[in-house]
């Protein structure tokens, strides 16, 4: 499965890691929904760390779309919220 870290590129992640990533992602989502800044940052960091741990970069010319896209590591909660709700954040 391909996962994209925004601003960094795509990684190939084994299917076996999906459940764990989903759990970490749920924690991130709930932090965003509760506007809980204190748990947002560590939740995003934990998810990213795990993706980097299990993933390996795809070939540069790989045109396959990603199954999961994660905000950039330094994204603010506000940016993440806009990514979820507002297509305007993606230009073009």
């Amino acid at each position: 499965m391909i996962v994209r870290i925004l601003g960094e590129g795509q990684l190939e992640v084994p299917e076996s890691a999906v459940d764990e990533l989903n759990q970490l992602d749920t924690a991130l989502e709930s932090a965003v929904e509760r506007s809980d800044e204190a748990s947002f940052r560590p939740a995003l960091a934990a998810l990213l760390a795990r993706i980097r741990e299990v993933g390996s970069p795809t070939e540069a010319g790989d045109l396959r779309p990603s199954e999961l896209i994660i905000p950039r590591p330094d994204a603010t909660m506000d940016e993440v919220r806009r990514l979820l709700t507002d297509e305007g954040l993606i230009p073009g």
Partner: protein
Amino acid sequence: MGVMKRVTMVFRAKANKALDRMEDPRETLDYSYQTQLELLQKVRRGVADVATSRKRVELQINQLQQSSDKLDRQARDSLAAGREDLAREALTRKAGIQTQLDDLQTQYASLQSEEEKLTQASQRLQAKVDAFRTRKETIKATYTAAEAQTRINEAFTGISEEMGDVGMAIQRAEDKTAQMKARAGAIDELMASGALDDMVSGPHDDIQAELDRMGAGHGVDRELEQMKAELAASAPRQIEGAQPGNSDGASAQPASASSAADPTQAGEPE
């Protein structure tokens, strides 16, 4: 559903909308390729813009560093001359400049990292655009319009995602560059107005002026002392020389010794 899935859906929706607009996908491939090349140009310009901004900040850092060093020297000179008040003033100004310097250094690091990320984004996009061009030619040569549609979907969605990502990176870099330009402009203005300049250089540098004045003052004092000493040394000799009948041997003697030895001479007005 999770943040990642939702973000992905937003990206997909965007790609699908573009795909829906295509009639004969083979023709649209060329149009899409053009758009990709334009974005590639844009991201390269973005890299150049960030680099320009970074260099400007670097220049300002160097200028402020020089000012800070100069104030440091002035503080030492002032202290050496026993002027703690001047030294304090110089160090206060240096602290003000240091605040600006710290701020600029933070910005510099941030621009440097942005430049790096954008360069990498440009390389990633380049690789995908190249791959897309190859795929596009194959599709155009090999497949009918109907067949091409399914072949294109994946490549198009993939590159559209990359373009969305790169587009966001460019926007972010533009925002940062704009912020930085505003700040750098403010510092340039401050320098141009002389407010910063007055502190550290030029004819309005009051600390330096004071140090110079003190330096000049010391010089005058020294010269005065020297002159007084010279006068004091030669005065008795002139008096002796004015005395009629004074022998050559007496004038060769040290002036102070001869004047001390002769009480009649010491009583005479100078």
